[in-house]
């Protein structure tokens, strides 16, 4: 008996799996390679001998010591542009994680400056600075502009299990890093953020929102 070969959906899936493995790995690798420029940026963190370093030659991270001769203390992609500050022996800073396709995810982390242990305080959040009374101010739920669930299907998938989808402004206790006050605010990522939250004390913001 002669059996005629059948092209089933399973066979199609197997073929797609094989070819897309090649295409996907090739395109992602090529895009990553073409993005690579020689960089060596060094952003000092005020009041410390630490600096955030982005480099294509050395690992990115927080370095201690003089420029280019410093020692790597914590590895990772940290961002000092939104506000980085120390309170006692703790450093509050944003940490970015890039996905394969280049979406930037952001978390607020606390780094112990004696042991250099890193602790994620708020995942999917951005540290935006300090308010007039000194508390760190973070925005959760909104993430970076390229990661809005409304415009990006992958971010919708990512956000499905995040739990906090609403954009909320959170005030942290500088000592314990616990959330002491939260204000849900869909417009928190607008340019007037500084005037509404950073230039006021926590008491003023609480009175304004009550």
């Amino acid at each position, binding site marked *: 008996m002669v059996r005629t070969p059948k092209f089933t*959906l*399973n066979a199609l899936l197997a073929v797609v*799996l094989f070819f897309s493995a090649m295409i996907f790995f090739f395109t992602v690798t090529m895009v990553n390679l073409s993005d690579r420029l020689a960089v060596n940026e060094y952003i000092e963190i005020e009041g410390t001998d630490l600096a955030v370093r982005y480099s294509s030659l050395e690992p990115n991270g927080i370095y201690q010591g003089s420029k280019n001769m410093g020692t790597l203390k914590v590895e990772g992609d940290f961002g000092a542009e939104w506000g980085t500050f120390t309170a006692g022996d703790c450093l509050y800073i944003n940490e970015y994680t890039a996905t394969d*396709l*280049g979406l930037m995810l952001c978390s607020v982390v606390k780094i112990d400056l004696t042991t250099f242990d890193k602790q994620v305080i708020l995942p999917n959040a951005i540290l935006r600075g300090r308010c007039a009374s000194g508390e760190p101010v973070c925005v959760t739920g909104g993430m970076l502009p390229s990661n809005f669930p409304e415009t*990006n299907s*992958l971010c919708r998938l*990512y*956000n499905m299990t*995040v739990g906090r989808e609403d954009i909320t402004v959170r005030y942290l206790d500088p000592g314990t890093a616990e959330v002491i006050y939260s204000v849900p605010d869909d417009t928190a990522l607008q340019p007037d953020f500084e005037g509404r939250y950073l230039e006021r004390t926590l008491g003023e913001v609480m009175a304004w929102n009550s």
Partner: protein
Amino acid sequence: MELIDRMKKIGFSQLCVYCYQICTLLPLPYILVAPGYMGLLTHRNLLSVLFDVGMAALPRAETLALSLLYRHTASERAVYFTMLTAALLLGLLLGRLLRAAPKTAEITQRALAGLLGADLLLRVLPFPCNLAFGWAASALGFAVEALCLALLVTDLRGARRSAAG
């Protein structure tokens, strides 16, 4: 008439498996093409709509598992290959079970119907994740899953009728 005969030959349960596999394939072009055209990630477009529909039409448990995987690995590659491999493995496994002895096939159909029923119930509960891809995609996902359940129930009824006859 010919179509009905062919469908009977394929089996409604097998159609249900095909439905699931096709839904799994829908989001793949979006992820596959995105590395070359980053604009796809920042604008709503047809591929993005396909992604939404495909993800909403998958069983909730799988979509949530993929979301968790995405959060922990931050890798679209992991999501892509997990989806594709799950569709392939499930297709192979269920295809084999449904073509096995009638008793095994019936147990498989009952188990699948039970899972789909539970999943449909989960979809109507007011969890935020149920509307993650918007109303339209969620409604279409519900309809696809309800259709799959109907196909399985039709097969089960047919098997019971032929056993009684």
